[in-house]
Structure formats: structure tokens, C-alpha cells
């Protein structure tokens, strides 16, 4: 019998959100708070010759104007390469150049508009291939002198390469010579934005005793604490980071940017509270975006479709600063082939600096971009072999007993069941063999398929924790360091706790905010790792509670703890369930009928540290970066107009091996959300830059997102191959709905128009251009 797992309970935060009462960072009361606004660079790359702040300083109400010369520090989570405010040089349009702090937001903005800056434009590079070309301008001539924060990052001095990772498995040279079919293709994906509904916001203050208080819309409160502590030499115990609800993160709020600026501003004002408010436009252009990607893919196969060899180059376009992008280059090297058993692999994955907005993690950590390239190439192989693209994928799907590119031996726990996902999505989507079907004059319907896989790339020693306290009614409070970013993670944790304690999930209350002073550290709310990492901590806290309840029960029932059962909020002696003590009477210790006190109050705690992960061998990439993989298969069906190149997405189907379904409706909606995000990104979202290196689509008038009414029929199915060592076997899943969607959509459109698509976004004009080029 299941008590909580497998039940579709509403999210714990639903009522606060649907009633509009949930409070986000920018909603909090601002009594006595000062406000900061940013002036940003209008150049992609330029020397700052002069900044005249006198106009701002003379405004009544302006308290401080801060420029790069006030901020000598460098920041970065892998390489310390990024100033808080540009000093002497700007490396992207949108980079902070000055910050004005004033009594209110309007005065701060008027101050920003009164600052005069003189620039000398410098040559710039926008695409990674340009940045690697002979004679390209260097963004960071001093690259070798920067401090490395982690071991696995390899900046190459005298170049624009922030890091490089190599995968070598088997022997591609001889393998390609044995192939009947070889396809090669070059891919280009522009960067784009996360576009969380809540614009980033941060506030900082310093108390009289020197404690730094930060409130922020962050996925990484403990990383905020760490970075402020490291760079400013503040003891971590003197930093307290508070995260209220976060209005969507998608990875974009895992980077620490605004918090640093808010701290600098507060420090300048003697510790007074300062809230940094940025516009939607700055959220797009100043705060980090999604990576771009260029790729060269060569795949070799036998005539029967068996994949033998892959030679791959990925150029991850990280923009002006590295942030976490080197780790994304590593992550897509680890998963470079897609979920296929390819015995011979050579992959070089580079992270390259360019003069545009820097990038950070984006839902699925670059796998949506990597999958686009590989899955398009796999379709090209299928076309050359004359095979159904679904059947070719089924034939090559990675299985237990195969080795991954980094030479991890697959077991069912490690790799799940991709063949079953493919079989299931075939039914769910009414797969038609992948051939376009005419449905009217100039109108065709076509389907595209993509598989997906992803493992994680956390620090090998990342940790999580859970604390559980009881209320006098016997209900519980669950306290973790997980930020609620909209993926329902805290609801899943409540269900894991309830299931383990054999109670209804309604008895578990969650603390929705994170306060680093009160909540146990959780690495970051990223990588879909809430259920695995925090879930394990919660599971252990539940075991801890059960042990304490049994001890109390043993005293109350005068028996051994082994004989005590805990179920349905009751404690009783095995074999005698009708004589029970309710939680409310025993969680605070037990008061016997004669008034004597027995046992102790119950306080649950659980901690979890990742185990068994390794760094990658620098030459071969051999190693294990994550505990297991999550695999899946996705299909998109479109109706295309062959005359005007417009199209409509009719349906999108996903089957993901989630290990175990904790909350069916929640999981379905999170996967569908990922699919929607993938369709919007792939069909219309892009950061393109003009001949001056400026963003062509810097606001919501020009940057397009999919709207309600444009969405297709979403179909979501699950496979459940449990992962060992994960609570109830659940696998990371919350990012994964996005991964294969851009590729599946492009595969459908390639089939419909008979053209091999190699770039995004998939606009009618792009399809028309392919057709025009084909006519030449």
C-alpha cells in the first residue's frame, strides 16, 4: 500500500501562487530600503575612456555612484574572470558600467541616465568560430593569470578558449573505414534567454555586528554565501541568505550576479539595505543567458543502420565570462553521442569566449543544444540508410552492458530502459514511420523523433540535508535548502517523507523559503537533483524519526524497539494495532497515565553526500560524473504549408524513464512545461547580434515567445526503471522535457520540407531560406 508516493496531490505552494499572495524578492516590504539601478554598456567591446558621474551625484536623493574603480574584485564559479562592474574595458553590450544608489528607484534611474561615459570601440567576436580564428581579438589576454576555482577547468593562454574536454573511446579511424554510410554536418545554434517570469532581484544589508543579510531570487543561496565569503573574506557564518519564492529559474538564477552588486552597494552605504532592481531588458541583456553552440558532427554506420563511430567537435559559446559554461562543455562531452551505443568516439568540447552576454546553466545544462546536433545527424543517417528514424534509434539505443562515452558500464539502474521509452512513445504519438503525409493542397503532416539522455556534473562532494520537526497536532515541518523554483520539488520531498513515515502527505508542511541560517545546506537547486540529493537526505531524516518514535514507543509499551510499528500517524506494538498512541501524544515524548514522562522529543535529521563520482581523465575523458542517466524519447508532429513555409505544431509526446512516479500530475505538468519551453526556444527564441555586436531583439517587442493558443496537444508517458540508491528509485527528470524537443521539431520540419536543417530558430523565414539556397 502506498501512503503518499504515486498520489497526485496539489503542490504545497499552489494556494499562495494561484491567489497571487506568494511573495517574491521584489514584493517584500521596502521600509528604509535604498534602491540601486545599473548603467550598462552600449558596446560589444570597448575601452572605457572616461566616466563622468557628476550629473548623477548632484541629483537630490542619490546616495552613491559606484563604478569599476570601486570594485577591484573578480568573480567566477570556475575561473575568476568577471568584474562586478566593468573596469577599463567592457566585453559585452549590457555589461554593468555603473550603479547608482538612491532613496527610491526613480531617482536611481534618473541618476543612471545622467552619467556620461566615453568609449573607444574595440574589435569584437560574436561566434565561437570567429573567436578561434587566427588573429581574433582576445577577450581575456590575462587569462593565464586568473584564479581557477575548481580543478577541472583548463583555460588556454593566448586564446579565447576558457576550457577544453576530450573524449576518446575505441578507434574512430579504423571504424570510419568500415562504415558504409557516413554523414557530416555543421550546426549553429544562437544563444537565447531563460525568460523566467520573475525578473531577477537582490537585496543586501549589513547589520551592526557585521552580518551580511542577502535576500535574492536565487536557485543557489549556499553558492551566494560561498562566493561572498570567498571574495570578500567574510566568515560564512556572518552571511545569511534568504530566498523567498522564485518565479522560475531554469538555471538562470543559479549564477551569482545581482547579490554581489547589492552587497557592494550596501557596503558603500554603511550597511543600509539596498535593493537592486533591473528591468526586463537588463534581465535579458545584462544577466546571464543560454549558451550558443557550434558543432561539427560526423557519424558512421553500417548499411543496416548500426552506428559505429562518432567524431564530434562542440564549441560552447559562453559569451564574455565563463561562469559555469566550461562545466556545460564538459557535460555535453560526457553525453556527446546521445543515448546510443557507439563503440568508437572522439569528441573535443571547447568553451569559447565571445563578446556577448555571458551564459549560465539553462534547463538541461546544454543538453537541449547538444541533442539538437546529434539527433539531427542521426536522422541524416536514417535517411541515408533508408530506415525509419525510430527503428534506427531503437536499434542503436544504449542498453545495460554497453559503455557510455566516458566508459561507464551500463546497468539497468545506471541507464534505465530507453528501448521501452521508444516503444511507448511510438504508441503515444501514433508514429507514422516518419514520412510526410499530404493532407491538402501544399499541406503536409510530418513527425520527428528524438531521444534524450542526461547525467549530472555536480562537484563530486556535493551535499544536501533535511531537518524535520513536529507540531503539537502530530503534523510535521520539513526544512531543506531546496529553493522552490516552480518545479514542485518540495512537494515531492514531502511525499517522500510521508511515504517513509507511512502517513498522508497532507500531514507534512514544507517551509517554502530558504534561509541559510536555518535550513541545512543543499548544494544548489539545479540539475534536477532535488529528488535524488535532498530526497535521500529526507529519506534518512525519516529513518531517523522512525528510530526515535520506536524508542519512545518501546518505553511507552514496555517492549523492545524492534517490536514497535509506525503507521498512519500511530505508534503501536506489533500484533496489537488497536492499542496505539497517536503521533501528537508521542512525538514530544510520552506522558504516561501516572504522569511520568517517557522517551524524548523527536527531531529528524538526514544528510547526504554524493559518492562514487570522479573527475574525467584529461586525455580520454574516462570517468563518472553523475550517479546515473535519465533517458527518454520524444516525438513532435507538425502540419506544414509547403508554399508559404509556415507550420503548426499539432502534438508533442514524451516518454521518460523517471525511475518512479512520485506525483503523476506534477511530473506530467513539469515534463509538459519542459516541452513547451523547448518548442518556444526552438521555433522562435534567439539572441542575434547586429553588425555592431548589439542584440537585435533586446525587449519583448522583438524577442518572441510561444503564447497560449499556439501550444499543441501534450502527451506524457513514463517508464519506471528504478535507480539504486535513490528514494523509491526516482530519477532526475524535471529539466528533461526540453531536451529532445528542438531536435524532434527540426526532424519533423526536415522531413516535411525535404531539407536538412542545421540551425535554430525554426522560423518560416529560415525554412524559406533553405529552399532558396536549394534552388541555386
Amino acid at each position, binding site marked *: 500500500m502506498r501512503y503518499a508516493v504515486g498520489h497526485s496531490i496539489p503542490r504545497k505552494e499552489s494556494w499562495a501562487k494561484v491567489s497571487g499572495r506568494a511573495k517574491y524578492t521584489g514584493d517584500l516590504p521596502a521600509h528604509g530600503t535604498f534602491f540601486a539601478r545599473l548603467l550598462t554598456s552600449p558596446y560589444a567591446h570597448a575601452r572605457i575612456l572616461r566616466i563622468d558621474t557628476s550629473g548623477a551625484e548632484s541629483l537630490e536623493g542619490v546616495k552613491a555612484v559606484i563604478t569599476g574603480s570601486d570594485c577591484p574584485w573578480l568573480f567566477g564559479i570556475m575561473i575568476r574572470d568577471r568584474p562586478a562592474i566593468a573596469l577599463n574595458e567592457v566585453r559585452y553590450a549590457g555589461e554593468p558600467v555603473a550603479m547608482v544608489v538612491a532613496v527610491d*528607484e526613480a531617482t536611481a534611474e534618473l541618476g543612471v541616465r545622467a552619467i556620461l561615459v566615453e568609449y573607444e570601440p574595440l574589435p569584437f567576436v560574436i561566434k565561437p568560430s570567429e573567436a578561434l580564428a587566427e588573429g581574433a581579438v582576445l577577450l581575456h589576454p590575462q587569462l593565464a593569470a586568473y584564479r581557477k576555482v575548481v580543478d577541472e577547468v583548463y583555460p588556454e593562454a593566448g586564446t579565447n578558449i576558457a576550457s577544453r574536454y576530450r573524449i576518446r573511446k575505441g578507434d574512430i579511424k579504423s571504424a570510419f573505414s568500415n562504415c558504409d554510410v557516413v554523414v557530416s554536418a555543421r550546426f549553429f545554434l544562437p544563444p537565447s534567454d531563460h525568460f523566467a517570469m520573475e525578473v531577477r532581484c537582490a537585496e543586501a544589508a549589513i547589520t551592526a555586528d557585521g552580518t551580511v543579510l542577502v535576500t535574492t531570487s536565487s536557485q543557489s543561496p549556499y553558492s551566494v554565501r560561498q562566493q561572498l565569503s570567498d571574495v570578500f573574506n567574510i566568515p560564512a557564518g556572518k552571511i545569511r541568505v534568504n530566498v523567498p519564492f522564485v518565479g522560475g529559474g531554469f538555471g538562470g538564477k543559479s549564477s551569482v550576479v545581482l547579490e554581489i552588486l547589492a552587497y557592494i552597494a550596501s557596503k558603500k552605504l554603511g550597511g543600509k539595505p539596498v535593493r537592486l532592481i533591473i528591468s526586463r531588458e537588463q534581465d535579458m541583456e545584462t544577466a546571464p543567458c543560454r549558451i550558443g553552440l557550434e558543432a561539427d558532427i560526423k557519424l558512421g554506420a553500417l548499411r543496416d543502420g548500426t552506428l559505429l563511430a562518432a567524431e564530434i567537435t562542440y564549441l560552447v559559446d559562453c559569451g564574455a565570462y565563463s561562469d559555469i559554461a566550461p562545466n556545460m562543455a564538459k557535460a555535453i562531452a560526457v553525453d556527446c553521442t546521445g543515448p546510443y551505443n557507439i563503440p568508437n568516439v572522439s569528441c573535443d568540447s571547447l568553451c569559447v569566449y565571445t563578446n556577448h552576454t555571458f551564459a549560465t546553466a539553462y534547463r538541461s545544462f546544454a543538453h537541449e543544444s547538444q541533442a539538437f546536433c546529434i539527433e539531427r545527424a542521426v536522422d541524416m543517417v536514417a535517411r541515408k540508410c533508408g530506415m525509419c528514424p525510430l527503428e534506427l534509434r531503437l536499434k542503436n539505443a544504449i542498453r545495460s552492458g554497453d559503455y557510455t562515452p566516458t566508459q561507464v558500464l551500463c546497468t539497468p539502474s545506471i541507464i534505465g530502459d530507453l528501448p521501452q521509452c521508444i516503444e511507448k512513445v511510438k504508441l503515444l504519438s501514433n508514429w507514422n514511420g516518419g514520412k510526410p503525409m499530404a493532407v491538402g493542397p501544399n499541406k503536409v503532416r510530418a513527425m520527428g523523433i528524438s531521444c534524450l539522455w542526461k547525467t549530472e556534473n555536480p562537484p563530486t562532494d556535493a551535499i544536501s540535508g533535511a531537518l524535520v520537526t513536529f507540531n503539537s497536532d502530530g503534523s510535521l515541518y520539513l526544512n531543506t535548502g531546496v529553493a522552490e523554483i516552480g518545479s514542485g520539488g518540495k512537494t515531492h520531498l514531502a511525499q517522500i517523507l510521508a511515504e517513509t513515515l507511512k502517513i498522508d502527505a497532507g500531514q507534512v508542511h514544507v517551509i517554502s523559503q530558504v534561509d541559510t541560517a536555518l535550513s541545512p545546506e543543499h548544494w544548489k537547486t539545479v540539475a534536477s537533483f532535488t529528488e535524488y540529493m535532498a530526497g535521500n537526505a529526507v529519506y534518512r531524516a525519516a529513518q531517523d524519526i522512525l528510530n526515535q518514535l520506536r524508542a519512545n514507543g518501546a518505553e511507552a509499551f514496555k517492549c523492545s524497539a524492534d517490536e514497535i510499528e509506525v503507521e498512519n500517524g500511530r505508534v503501536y506494538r506489533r500484533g496489537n494495532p488497536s492499542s496505539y498512541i497517536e503521533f501528537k501524544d508521542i512525538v514530544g515524548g510520552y506522558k504516561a497515565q501516572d504522569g511520568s514522562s517517557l522517551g524524548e522529543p523527536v527531531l529528524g535529521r538526514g544528510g547526504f553526500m554524493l559518492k562514487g563520482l570522479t573527475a574525467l581523465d584529461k586525455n580520454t575523458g574516462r570517468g563518472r560524473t553523475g550517479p546515473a542517466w535519465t533517458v527518454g524519447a520524444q516525438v513532435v508532429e507538425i502540419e506544414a504549408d509547403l508554399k508559404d513555409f509556415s507550420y503548426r505544431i499539432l502534438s508533442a509526446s514524451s516518454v521518460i524513464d523517471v525511475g518512479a512516479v512520485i506525483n503523476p500530475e506534477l511530473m506530467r505538468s513539469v515534463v509538459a512545461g519542459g516541452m513547451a519551453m523547448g518548442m518556444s526556444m526552438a521555433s522562435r527564441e534567439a539572441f542575434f547580434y547586429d553588425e555592431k555586436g548589439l542584440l537585435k531583439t533586446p525587449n519583448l517587442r522583438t524577442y518572441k515567445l510561444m503564447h497560449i493558443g499556439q501550444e499543441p496537444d501534450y502527451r506524457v508517458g513514463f517508464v519506471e526503471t528504478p535507480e539504486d540508491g535513490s528514494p523509491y528509485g526516482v530519477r532526475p527528470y524535471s529539466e528533461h522535457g526540453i531536451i529532445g524537443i528542438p531536435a524532434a521539431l527540426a526532424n519533423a520540419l526536415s522531413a516535411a520540407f525535404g531539407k536538412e536543417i542545421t540551425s535554430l530558430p525554426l522560423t518560416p523565414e529560415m525554412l524559406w531560406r533553405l529552399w532558396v539556397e536549394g534552388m541555386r
Partner: protein
Amino acid sequence: MIPANFIYIRPDCLSQAAIAFAQMQKEGRAPLYYGGGSEIITMARAGSISPGAVIDIKSIPECNVLGLSGDKLIIGAAVTLSTIKESRLFPLLGTACGRISDHTNQCRITLGGNLCGTIIYREASLPLMLSDAELLLYGPEGAKICAFNTIFNRRMQLKPGEFVVQVHIPATAINLPYIHVKKAAQEKMDYPLVNVTALRVGEEIRVAFSGFGSYPFRDFEVERALNDRGNSPKSRLDAAMAILSQQAHTDSEGSGAYRVFVLRNILEGMLEEWR
């Protein structure tokens, strides 16, 4: 957030509006007449304009008229796009208004505001270009009536202090057959990549464009080519496109070459429908 303070004036009659404008201008406040405000608010927020005063014309009775009067349909400049659409008085203009922005904004944007805005599309102008419409203007010298096509050349050519009070459309034009095709880059609700608006007066086709060039226009040469019934539809189309192709505009919505492709498809469909 609009950071700078400004004066808000809401006059009750035409003369008060003109007087307020003159006064604000004298004080160096660079005043703007204000209809629905959607453009002024967003541009002031972005810092591209900073008016020291706005004069809201929505309380002036003449600016809120909507109805047939004698042989004319009269629409006040402060009437919103959604009201025009729902009135069904001029189906072509209603269709055009119903495709500008989204419903929320259509409830705010006024006809005068769309015509006088700085965003290049001004799609409500196309039906007026085709229907022999007139404008009632008011300014420092009082009221005057002008042909729409003499005042609207790429954009409204108003004198300082002048504003649009009403649009007058001949009743004979409002129920003529029309074609309205708006193609955006990818969305249903968006700026036009190409908007083709056509009206048929007897056998004569009148046609105007927005989005295709960097301003809305009607071109008599193009109409002559399209109406040359001596020629086949294909050669009429070729002749029209030869004139039009030069005007194709490139921006983040699409390239000029793609606009030419899209426009040709639309005109081809129009000639087929009105064979």
C-alpha cells in the same frame, strides 16, 4: 517605471486642449497629446522619450464620437480599437483594429494613437488610405478638415499643437468588398511582416501596405499595374512586384527578400480571389 515627473492635463473641450498645449510648450515642457498611452508609457519607461507634460484628449466629447452622421461614418480619435471592432460599423477597419496588438491592448489603444504613433506600422491607416477618408484636426488655428491622404504621408504630418479629433469616412466606402491579410514572422499577434489591405471599388482594386516597407503606403503605380485587366494576372503581379520590391524593408522581423516572397504570395491570392 517612468522615472521623471511630468504634468498630466485632461481638458474637457477642444480649445482647452490647444491652449494647454501652447502653454506647456511655452514653458519648455515638450508636451504630447495623449490617447491610450500605450506608446508614451512604454517609450518613457525605456527612456527614449521624456515628455514634461501630456494632454489627455479622452474627455473631449468630439473625440469619443462613433456613428453614422448623414453620409459619413464619424469615429473620434479617442475611440479604442476594440470599440471600433465591436461596433461592426466599418468591417475593414474593424478587422484591421482587431489584428493590431492583442485584445488587452486593443482595449487601450485609440484610433488616433495608432495613426499618430512612432512605431512604424500604423496599421489602422491602411483602410483610411483606401476609403477617401477625411480628418478633422484641431490646433492653434482652430478646426479644419483635410483629406486623409494629404495629411498622412508615411506618417501623420501634423503641425505643432495640432491633434486628430475625428476620422470621417464616406458611408459609400464602408461596406465595399475588401481583403485584409496580415502575415507576421511567426505569431498570430505581432507586428506585421507584411500587411496587405485592399478595397474593391467597382472593378477597381485599391491596395495599401504596412510592414513591407519602413512606413505604411498606398502606391498608385502599383494599383495601375494590378488593375491593368488587359494583362494576365501573372504579368499584372510581376509588374506590381517590380515596383514594390524596391521598398522592401529589413529588420528583426524579417529580411527584405523574405518580405518580397511573402508579399507576392499574398497578392497572388488576392488576384485569384478577385479574378
